[in-house]
């Protein structure tokens, strides 16, 4: 029997400071997330300098909590994984420097990890992934369709050309004077709505898996302006429904089309917007219809967290692909380039 191994992962790419300890690549012993959302709410969005300051404030506290909760000692840690990118550069730096310091302190390997690979491999923490698989990544910063021909090999077949889905949700929510973060409020309003204001769908060129949400966002703003000019009340619920329906129609249709074209064996939904009920329900229905298994991690593994970083880092741990202490935070790190090399 081989000795169990433990990866400690650090995630600070945006406004969550998170540390996790994961055993044997799949068993989450701890996954502590310190959210700064209450701080950033006052500013209506994430303020990068404040996010960086908060990360420095909490990093060792969260490290200590994660190690204690995992019931291991630092001597049990076999490697340190960290989100290398993409993300806010100042925020990434704190995690990267902490991880490198810990790698030196414990004399264990360092694994720089791609944030989106983390979102995708969060699914590995709840089930086995069968390849080829297609991942639909929807979050505040990302909207991507990623093909995984085999384990750890990423090919982006579609991406947003302007706003990420989560970003569009936040902007529309702000226009409707909903509190930050707006995604859950739009989702709830859309569910409650009795009527819908029909909004356009951005299908882009035929056979194209890219996305665009800026036109849809503009359509919402135009409708709000129109109502304001006429002195009519804003029909927030109907607008939320129209917006959400347009997003879901396009995102799920493209995902299903790509899944069929590439003959994938599973569809993986991931990223913070995977929490959106409307999206989950529609995708479940479509996948059931197509007899395509759908994997969706629980909410705690969809939003930014370090356990998902450990799950992705495990790909490299098992292949012995480590970083050096000169590892650099890369705000634009490429997912495809991060693929495993063998």
């Amino acid at each position, binding site marked *: 029997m081989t000795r169990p191994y433990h990866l400690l992962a650090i995630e600070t790419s945006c406004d969550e400071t998170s540390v996790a300890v994961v055993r044997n690549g799949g068993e989450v012993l701890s996954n502590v997330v310190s959210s700064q959302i209450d701080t950033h709410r*006052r*500013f209506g969005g994430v*303020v990068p*300098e*404040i996010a*960086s*300051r908060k990360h*420095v*404030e909490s*990093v*060792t*506290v969260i*490290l*200590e909590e994660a190690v204690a909760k995992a019931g291991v000692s*630092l001597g049990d840690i076999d490697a340190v994984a960290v989100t290398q990118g993409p993300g806010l550069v*100042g925020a990434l*730096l*704190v995690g*990267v*420097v*902490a991880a*490198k*310091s*810990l*790698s*030196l*302190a*414990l004399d264990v390997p360092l694994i720089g990890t791609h944030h989106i690979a983390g979102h995708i491999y969060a699914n590995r923490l709840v089930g086995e992934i069968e390849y080829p698989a297609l991942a639909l990544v929807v979050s505040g910063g990302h909207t991507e369709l990623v093909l995984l021909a085999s384990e750890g090999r990423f090919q982006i077949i579609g991406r947003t050309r302007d706003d990420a889905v989560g970003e569009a949700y936040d902007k529309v929510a702000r226009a409707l004077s909903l509190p930050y973060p707006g995604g859950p409020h739009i989702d709830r309003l859309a569910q409650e709505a009795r009527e819908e204001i029909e909004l356009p769908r951005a299908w882009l060129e035929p056979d194209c898996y890219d996305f665009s949400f800026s036109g849809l966002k503009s359509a919402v703003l135009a409708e709000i302006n129109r109502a304001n000019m006429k002195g009519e009340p804003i029909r927030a619920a109907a607008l939320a429904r129209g917006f959400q329906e347009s997003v879901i129609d396009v995102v799920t249709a493209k995902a299903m089309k790509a899944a069929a074209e590439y003959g994938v064996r599973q569809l993986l939904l991931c990223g913070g917007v995977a929490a959106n009920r409307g999206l989950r329900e529609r995708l479940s229905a479509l996948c059931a219809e197509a007899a395509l298994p759908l994997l969706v991690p629980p909410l705690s593994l969809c939003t930014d967290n370090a356990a998902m970083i450990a799950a992705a880092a495990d790909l490299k741990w098992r292949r012995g692909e480590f970083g*050096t*202490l*000169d*590892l*650099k*935070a890369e705000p634009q790190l490429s997912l495809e380039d991060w693929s495993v090399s063998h």
Partner: protein
Amino acid sequence: MNGTNSGKMEGGCTALALDTSSAVLATAITRNGSVWDSSQSFTERNHSVRVVSDLRELMARAGLRREQIDFIAVGRGPGSYTGVRIAVTAAKTLAWAWQKPLVGVSSLEAMAFGAWHQWTGRPDTERSAWIVPVMDARRGQVYTSLFAANRDGKWARAEADGIRPLAAWCDSLRELAANADDSERPQAVYFVGESSFLEGKREAIAAGAGTIPFRTEAFAIEAGAVGLLAERKFRRGERDDIHGFVPNYTQLTEAEVNLMKARTEIAK
């Protein structure tokens, strides 16, 4: 700096020290009041890339094992926001993982202290001086402070670290120097900072206070000074709380300032 590599490392007061608040990435090992070994790297403004490697190389070169380290010493700023976070994060994490005490010092004081220590070996240095560290804070402002020193070993802080407009700060220093009691009056006032920053500012600074000359001297932070200053605190029993330790930014973020402004407007 004046390190001696002969003595045994055990049984003393040994610090691993670092500072990344300015353009230099500085690391050092200090022990019992002297600098054991140190490194300064100017090649890469992105200190986050090299900070941990530099520490490891320094330890390897000096043959320093982690068990021999008594505490971690770090410059907590002020300086570049991103810069100060790098050393503070590394220091906090190392102190936590190794379970060593953490002692933070002012990066400005380290700059001033390091410069004064270097000059006291020089015959042309006055017996007593004021040392004014200056670091670029943009828009005509500097992170700065004031220290009084003499050759008999006096080292005292005279002003708190802060962000000040350079021109107004020079004026108030001229007034302070001119009005100082005989016992407190310095023989010279030295502005120390990075050469690239002092370039073009010498004129503005040069007008002295009566007979007291104002001088500018280029000096880059050495972590040896961080370790030596921290050792004094460490010997007095001062420790920083590892978890609560944060950089000294000296000011709120722009977003916080704007929010406060907006709230005051509404209150009116």
